[in-house]
């Protein structure tokens, strides 16, 4: 059928990567002018990491967790607490002070970020292991409950001297540039792709397809489910750490269940089992939400104030669009397929074919 030469595909891929890097470099050298776009792109890249990590678990292993916000909170607070400059701390913890052992601990961003991921993975293991050993159907409920408990713990007065309670953390050092965010996000996603394409990733897919058959093929269900869950938690923690650095100030409200639902929507819209779908949807959703701000400001045309245009209307439109996509693109943008140049080619041929058929006098109608 329609397909390109491998060489052509390689050239196109390299060209695409080069175009993205060039765009990022351009944005970075005109920071002041494009700060708004940069913020959207950075948030999208961070969401892409957590969306792919959720897809690894749900789309590739068939397990369902709703603890994303909680695991992100763990990563975010680990990074926040460990990277706020020592001089800035009295200012951050101005009410209750900071716990002695932490007062002078300051890690480089990289170390704190990895530690954030490890913390999330550790906590994930502690919650996941008993649940996955019994009945993995309860994973969603257990992680959802856990996520709320984490939020309560963060805001608990007893932990004020560590998490700064309900005052949250601020003065978290920012990213050096948008390239740093994209670089880390790309690395994380690349690692997850390698996991999925490895023999372990195939075992995950086997579990998703049919647990009984997978087990009959010698795959230890508990071991592989735990593996997938802990890996997913690790990268969710990393994305939480990135979010903390991106936002620079966080508190327990940053990590409400809504955050988890946003990620879930991205994964479903992008397509369960499609990594490129998750990445694409992260950017579309995050940007789409901003474009729709247009609906939030009162619109006056020639002295006539158009009804409905007011604060919050954008979310109505957003929900409608989502509903339409879920109704008509039930498998998400990408289904369980990945982006490929051949896919793009076919897509354009299909559109061209449809246009030709619609145009009368082209012989198309007669054929149909």
């Amino acid at each position, binding site marked *: 059928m329609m397909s390109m030469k491998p060489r052509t595909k390689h050239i196109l891929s390299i060209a695409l990567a080069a175009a993205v890097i060039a765009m990022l470099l351009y944005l970075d050298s005109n920071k002041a002018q494009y700060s708004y776009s940069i913020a959207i792109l950075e948030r999208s890249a961070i969401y892409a990491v957590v969306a792919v990590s959720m897809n690894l678990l749900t789309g590739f292993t068939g397990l369902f967790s709703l603890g994303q916000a909680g695991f992100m909170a763990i990563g975010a607070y680990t990074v926040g607490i460990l990277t706020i400059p020592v001089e800035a701390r009295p200012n951050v913890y101005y009410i209750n002070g900071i716990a002695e052992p932490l007062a002078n601990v300051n890690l480089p961003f990289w170390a704190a970020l990895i530690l954030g991921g490890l913390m999330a993975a550790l906590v994930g293991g502690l919650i996941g292991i008993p649940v996955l050993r019994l009945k993995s159907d309860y994973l969603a409920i257990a992680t959802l409950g856990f996520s709320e408990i984490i939020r309560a713990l963060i805001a608990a007065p007893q932990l004020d001297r560590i998490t700064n309670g309900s005052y949250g953390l601020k003065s978290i050092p920012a990213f050096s540039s948008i390239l740093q965010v994209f670089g880390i996000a790309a690395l994380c996603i690349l*690692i997850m792709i*390698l*996991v999925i394409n*490895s*023999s*372990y990733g*195939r*075992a995950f*897919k*086997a579990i998703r*397809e*049919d647990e*009984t*058959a*997978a*087990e*009959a*093929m*010698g*795959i*230890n*269900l508990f071991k592989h489910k735990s*593996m997938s869950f802990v890996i997913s938690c690790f990268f969710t923690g990393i994305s939480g750490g990135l979010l903390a650095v991106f936002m620079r100030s966080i508190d327990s409200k940053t990590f409400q269940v809504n955050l988890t639902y946003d990620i879930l929507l991205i994964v479903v819209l992008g397509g369960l089992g499609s990594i490129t779908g998750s990445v694409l949807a992260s950017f579309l959703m995050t940007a789409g939400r901003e474009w729709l701000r247009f609906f939030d400001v009162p619109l006056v045309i020639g002295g006539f104030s158009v009804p409905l245009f007011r604060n919050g209307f954008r979310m109505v439109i957003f929900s409608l669009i989502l509903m339409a996509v879920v109704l008509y693109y039930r498998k998400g943008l990408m289904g*369980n397929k990945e982006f490929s140049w051949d896919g793009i080619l076919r897509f354009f041929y299909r559109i061209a074919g449809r246009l030709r058929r619609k145009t009368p006098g082209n012989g198309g109608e007669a054929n149909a």
Partner: protein
Amino acid sequence: MPDNVLHLADVTMQFGGVVAVNNLSLEVNRGEIVALIGPNGAGKTTAFNVATGVYAPTNGRVSFNGETIVSNFPQGKMKKMYAGENRGKYTDVVRKTPDVITKLGIARTFQNIRLFKNLTVFENVLIAKHMNMKAGLFLSTCMINYKEEREMRRQSTELLEIVGLAELRSEISGSLPYGQQRRLEIARALATEPSLLLLDEPAAGMNPQETNDLTSFIYQLRDDFHLTIFMIEHHMNLVMEISDRIYVLDFGKLIAAGTPSEVQNNQRVIDAYLGVAEDGE
């Protein structure tokens, strides 16, 4: 003394009040082809599920190459409800999970084909090679174990060639016709390198030609892979031709056992099953 591979001893499987397998004892010896036959709902598949660790039996023991892999006795709610025999004969609980039993060398296919439907033919076989992999997650992710991966792929390709599915390797397995899906399921089971192969109705849904081919295929498997084969099958021509011995199950109970000619001439078997089967088909 015959070399005992699989041994079921007094196995009873009770679901609530339903006794699906009732005090079943049987054995399969090395190199044999043994069939388990009986009317629908007799408990044949359930017996396979007990032998492969999918269900823990209510009472009884299963051993493989002399090692107990499954053993249980009525406990908890079943203490009161137990309607089978040999209560008190077994007092230990052994519950190896299906993956462990597969690693010991028992592989199986399923009556209602359980392929990884959305994955390719090749991936289906390759996945069964995973359990013998030495590399851990890290080495495998970083592709440091590429030699091992290459060997897994080579062996999977070879298996596909043996079962005649090499040209279809990139097809989505769920899209294959029925007969080929059954062959693929056998290839996938072989990929786990078993010594005992359990086939649950391998000819179901096959056309007469495919059923015919199956006979020589099963002989070939036994000889090339040094297998012992235990199969559930309804096609009497196939069963009578291929089996060294036959066990007949009815309402969970063993009603006859012996060589094909012995079983064929057994009045109880004719009444319970063979007469009915011939009328039915």
